[in-house]
């Protein structure tokens, strides 16, 4: 897998490069701002971009804007945004239209090396990786509206993991359940919420996020 990294904090950037290379991926370029990111993507056409949201020169959302630009100009390149804080507004902008090949994670998640690399690989393969903070904020809003009342607590856990973009196998591993049990929960959730059954994982994410009022 070929990766371009954009992160302005030098030590963190070096750590990311090392982490991904140790996991056997190729880091084509590691840059420190949005403009350089666009240039490197055009030059290397990587599978996935891992980028910070807040970067020079303005230190607001330069990374996010570069990512949205990439979604338009290089639809084949997946983008995984990293940030030190979560804004559901940013998630909504990223997921606008499609959840395929999009990720938004807190930087803290990088500490769980295996889980983080899995998320990078999943996004690069056209999947979704949404931070559990994003998902829990969305779930809180829906819970207040009473939309999730029909679900059992277990089904809510499964719903949250689906919203994060995990596959059934991933959900089974995370909750220590069998694949069959997870599939049963998923079918039950879709029936209770009146969602159309979806075949692919990222359509499913989108359906769930739409239901939660985002994406």
């Amino acid at each position, binding site marked *: 897998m070929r990766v371009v990294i954009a992160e302005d*904090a030098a*030590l*963190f950037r070096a*750590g*990311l490069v*090392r*982490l991904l290379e*140790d996991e056997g991926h190729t880091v084509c370029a590691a840059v420190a701002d949005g403009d350089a990111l666009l240039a490197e993507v055009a030059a290397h056409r990587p599978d996935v971009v891992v980028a910070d949201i*807040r970067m020079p020169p303005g*230190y607001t959302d330069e990374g996010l804007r570069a990512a949205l630009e990439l979604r338009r100009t290089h639809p084949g390149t997946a983008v995984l945004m990293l940030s*030190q804080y979560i804004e559901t507004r940013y998630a909504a902008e990223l997921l606008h239209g499609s959840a395929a090949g999009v990720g938004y994670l807190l*930087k*803290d998640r*990088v*500490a*769980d*090396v*295996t889980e*983080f690399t899995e998320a990078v690989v999943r996004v690069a393969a056209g999947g979704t990786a949404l931070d559990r903070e994003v998902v829990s904020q969305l779930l809180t809003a829906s819970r207040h509206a009473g939309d999730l009342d029909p679900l059992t607590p277990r089904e809510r856990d499964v719903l949250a993991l689906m919203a994060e973009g995990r596959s059934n196998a991933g959900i089974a591993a995370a909750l220590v359940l069998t694949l069959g049990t997870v599939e049963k929960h998923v079918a039950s959730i879709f029936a209770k919420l009146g969602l159309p059954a979806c075949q692919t994982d990222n359509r499913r994410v989108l359906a769930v996020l739409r239901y939660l009022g985002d994406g």
Partner: protein
Amino acid sequence: MSVTGLAATAARAPFTGRARREVLFCVLALPLSLPLPFLGFIGTISLAAGNSSWRVVLVAVAVAALVMVLLVATGAARSLAGACRTLAGSLLGEQVAAPPPRAGARLTDGPGWRAMAYLMLRLPTGLLEGYAVAVFWLAGLVNLTYPFWWLSFRNHSPGVQLSPVVVITPFDWLGGHFQVTTFPGTFAACGAGVGMLLAAPWVTRTVVAADRWLIRGLLGPGRMAQRLRDLEQTRALAVDDAAARLRRLERDLHDGAQIGLATLAMNLGMARKKLGDHGDEVPDLAAARELVGAALQGAKDALGELRELARGIHPPVLDRGLTDALASLAATSAIPAELTVSVPVRPTPAIETIAYFCAAELLANAAKHSAANTITIKVTERAGYLALEVTDDGRGGADPSGGSGLAGLAQRVAVVDGRLDIASPAGGPTRITVELPLRAG
């Protein structure tokens, strides 16, 4: 100034832009010099057709008062006075802030009544201004032309005695007129004109100065309103300052300790992976050791940054008083600093904090810009004020507009009605004095 210099100034004075603008002001403000209440008074008296009994005078006074009330109530007094203020601002450079809009009832409008008083006082000042322009400038100019008129219209045969021609001078009111009867005499008139024109700019300047004084005193926002305006301004600055500090704090955390800890966690995560999940088997011990080392360094760095940040918010030593806090500040100063403190009454904590950060900023400024060898910090109490004096023997030339943080300091000090004085001639030394009330608010 030498005698020739004085003479040159006097000769140039009538032709300066200032003289021109002052004359223009006198002329343009003249229509505002006949106050309507006065016209009401005169009008009533003349309607009575010479019957000036005390009753007529009483009615006339009542009419004048009524006109005044109407002028204030309708806001016309404010508008007329506003025109004067605008004229004074654009022609005389007399910048007086407009009073705030009327807040209460129409008749208790303080600024409106002050405007009315100004309009009444314009009767004497305006007439004096008009007199100065008419007698000194206009008559002076006319006098200059006497020889010309004489030659044009008094072309008489020798020996004929002509009636005398009257020359206007500023002394006419003393009685007795300056008259010319011969052609050479017109040159005396011409000389009088020169003298009047030379005196004219100083006369207008004097009468206009009186008018300026009235405008400043009566057409400004008033003392309480000015105070209110100052408070609003400093409050806005304080709010902006607080918001900017929070923003800076967030930024420092985000770019410092927070990302440092994220990197540390990442290094530990990678190290754990290198150590293997279970058993005694370690896949890559050397790499694990290196990563743990990097994580340890990251933890130390983050701790250091957090400590600095916390101290920037509130130095713990301040809790023991300003003297101790300044002593520890002086001890860590880049340029050797000598401290003397004699403050018998302890200021409130907020004042101590402001004084401390002022001293810290001034020391940092000196270290950055002054190239000084020593600094002295003196803290004393003067009449309910805490005076912090920071003097260095450096190169001087400290300028609050030079972006050295002095302007920001002055703003912060102003919030508690304090003052910042800068004495920093080029070549040094620099002495900056901060005065703060002992208690805020």
